[in-house]
């Protein structure tokens, strides 16, 4: 997504500089939500205030909204077709592989210190074997980060 954002926003429209977009991207990763959407909101807001932010966000989500809705409609209808059912059987195998790939890539990017490794394993174990809500695990990790920083044990 980043190369596309760079091309459209920096080279084609000159709305932001390359440094700015990298800054936005960094902030987009540290704020809740989808990174690409966050960058869009950021650029829109910087250019045209609140309305700009809202419109660029709407622009970013509209194609998905339309395309996915249409696909969902068809998929639910054609699920009973024999060929579609076989295709879905094969697709599931690929989805598993894609997801495995996502986790491995994310682990390589995010687990770079011992405390980070412990956070990753603890979150996995808690989510897997305890009824602790997902939201609570996220909040607890954030609090742990601040406490460890205060204790001088953790440098992000």
């Amino acid at each position, binding site marked *: 997504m980043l190369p596309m954002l760079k091309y459209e926003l920096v080279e084609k429209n000159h709305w932001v500089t390359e440094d700015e977009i990298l800054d936005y991207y960094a902030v987009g990763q540290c704020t*809740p*939500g989808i*990174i690409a959407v966050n960058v869009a909101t950021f650029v829109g807001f910087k250019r045209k205030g609140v309305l700009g932010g809202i419109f660029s966000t709407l622009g970013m989500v509209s194609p998905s909204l339309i395309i*996915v809705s249409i*696909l969902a409609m068809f998929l639910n209808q054609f699920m009973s077709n024999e060929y579609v059912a076989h295709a879905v059987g094969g697709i599931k195998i690929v989805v598993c592989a894609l997801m*495995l790939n996502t*986790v491995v890539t994310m682990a390589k990017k995010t687990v770079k210190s011992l405390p980070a490794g412990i956070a990753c394993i603890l979150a996995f174990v808690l989510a897997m074997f305890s009824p602790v809500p997902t939201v609570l695990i996220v909040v607890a990790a954030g609090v742990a980060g*601040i406490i460890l920083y205060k204790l001088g044990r953790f440098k992000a």
Partner: protein
Amino acid sequence: MNNVYLQLFIEFFQIGLFAIGGGPATIPFLMDLPNRHDWYEVSDVANMLAVSESTPGPIGINMATYAGYNAAGFLGGIVATFSLVLPSLIVIMIVAKILDRFNKNMYVKSSFGMIRPAVTGLIATAVWGIFRTALFMTAEGKWQFPVLLVLMSLGFYGLMNIKKLKKLHPAVWILCGAIVGIVFKL
């Protein structure tokens, strides 16, 4: 609280607020939703991911649209998607005003430094859930170990990590999966 749109709003607003680290971070939350609502089954998540990965746009948004559509039709998709982006819309506009301070703040940095690996752990749990429903559970809820399917899945994973194939769009892999599925009658 019986209104499905209100429930969609509450659930997806929460996901938008706590799914930190981009699109894949929404998956653990989406795996958790069927425990509370009958909008879709856990076993549907694999299909949802396939649709989301092979359509343009960020997967998190695609997932929300698809989940919302399954729950309450076209309008449900719209409500879920807007609820998902609303928290970040608000947060970004606040942060945009204090960008430099926010970016370099040690508390922000250290908390996110721990949240990101934790989210990776959460996603790992969700991925296990997808493996379980897509491969290791029969439609009747019994355990199975389909050696061939598992090997095929690992084979695809291996292919994805070949240097020349790394840049391929997920949709290409999904298309390959569909063909393999039809040819081998999976």
